[in-house]
């Protein structure tokens, strides 16, 4: 009898990222204006899923307790550096989910557009890392749950009262 490892569901909280390998699944729940980004290597079936809250760390640079996993500009390079340690010849691809505008308040405040700014920042960070973004499901005004199957790189997006989307 061969021993095949039982798939584990790795849950990623807000302002965090985790790396895992097939047959495991990566899951992050409650993406509103936040964004979940999966960066994946097909040969090794290793992937990292990040759940960022904010686009840019610069306004917070002076904080002593800065958590890089919270910001698009810091989280993605850091996760990719960690992935590279595990994968000698990586060919990364990325998919992103989230970035909604949950509440439609009419105001000039920049924070109202956080979802949109988050998705622009994730795109920019991926471009800088030269990682192609092959699929995305962003914007709108609904929250999302994101499940990544590391065997197939299939991303399942669950939305309340809507049909499940597969990327």
């Amino acid at each position, binding site marked *: 009898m061969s021993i095949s490892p039982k798939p584990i569901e790795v849950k990623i*909280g*807000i*302002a965090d990222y985790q790396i895992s390998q097939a047959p495991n699944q990566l899951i992050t*729940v*409650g*993406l*509103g*204006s*936040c964004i979940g980004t999966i960066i994946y290597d097909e040969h090794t079936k290793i992937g990292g899923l990040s759940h960022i*809250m*904010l686009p840019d760390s610069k306004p*917070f640079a002076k904080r002593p307790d800065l*958590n890089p996993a*919270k910001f698009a500009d810091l989280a993605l390079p850091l996760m990719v550096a960690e992935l590279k340690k595990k994968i000698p010849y990586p060919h990364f691809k990325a998919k992103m989910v989230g970035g*909604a505008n*949950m*509440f*439609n*308040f009419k105001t000039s*405040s920049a*924070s*109202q557009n*956080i*979802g949109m700014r988050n998705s622009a920042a994730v795109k920019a960070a991926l471009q800088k890392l030269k990682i192609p973004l092959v699929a995305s499901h962003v914007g709108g*005004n*609904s*929250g*999302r*749950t994101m499940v990544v199957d590391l065997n197939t790189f299939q991303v399942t997006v669950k939305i*309340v*009262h809507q049909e499940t989307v597969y990327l």
Partner: protein
Amino acid sequence: MKYTDLQIDGLREIINIGGGNAATSISKMVSQKIDMKVPEVKILTYSELYQKILADDVEVYAVISRIIGKYAGAILFIVTNEAVDQLSSLILGNADQQEQQVKLSAISELSNIVSNSFLNAIGKVINAQLISSLPQITNDFFGAIISSAYMAFDNYDEQVMVIRNEFSYSKQKLDASLFLIPEEGVLDKMIESLGI
């Protein structure tokens, strides 16, 4: 975010008064005594929030209104699907026979009354007029709603000041809570107005 115990107690007292008034206004609307637990005023991380209050993947109805003026922010009334049924059957009679749309409009109206009686009461304590905008109702995952609501009002930390009232009736649990989400600096102004 650092406040003394005395300041937190002061805030809790304001919220207690607001929540008490909100509970009374729900009681009037449903003609049943609605009780309120001692309000929570606590700094929690998101993971603590999802463990202690409600899991991030629970589908809830959220009614959110902006608070306009010197004490800006939002007031968020969160009810689970079961609580929508409980409350709307108290308001409308038999909930099973009501259309979802009717139930939601009842909840929206209830939330409007609850939010305004809460804001009126705390406005009297801190001697300010707190005005809320017309509410929006959404049905979504608790995690998506609460994190986006805090961030929409400039609370960017991974720890948030949770200010919450929880209600119950005739010893039954009612999964309905009222969150106050202040914009940056508003809590300081509230504490200042108490003189502590």
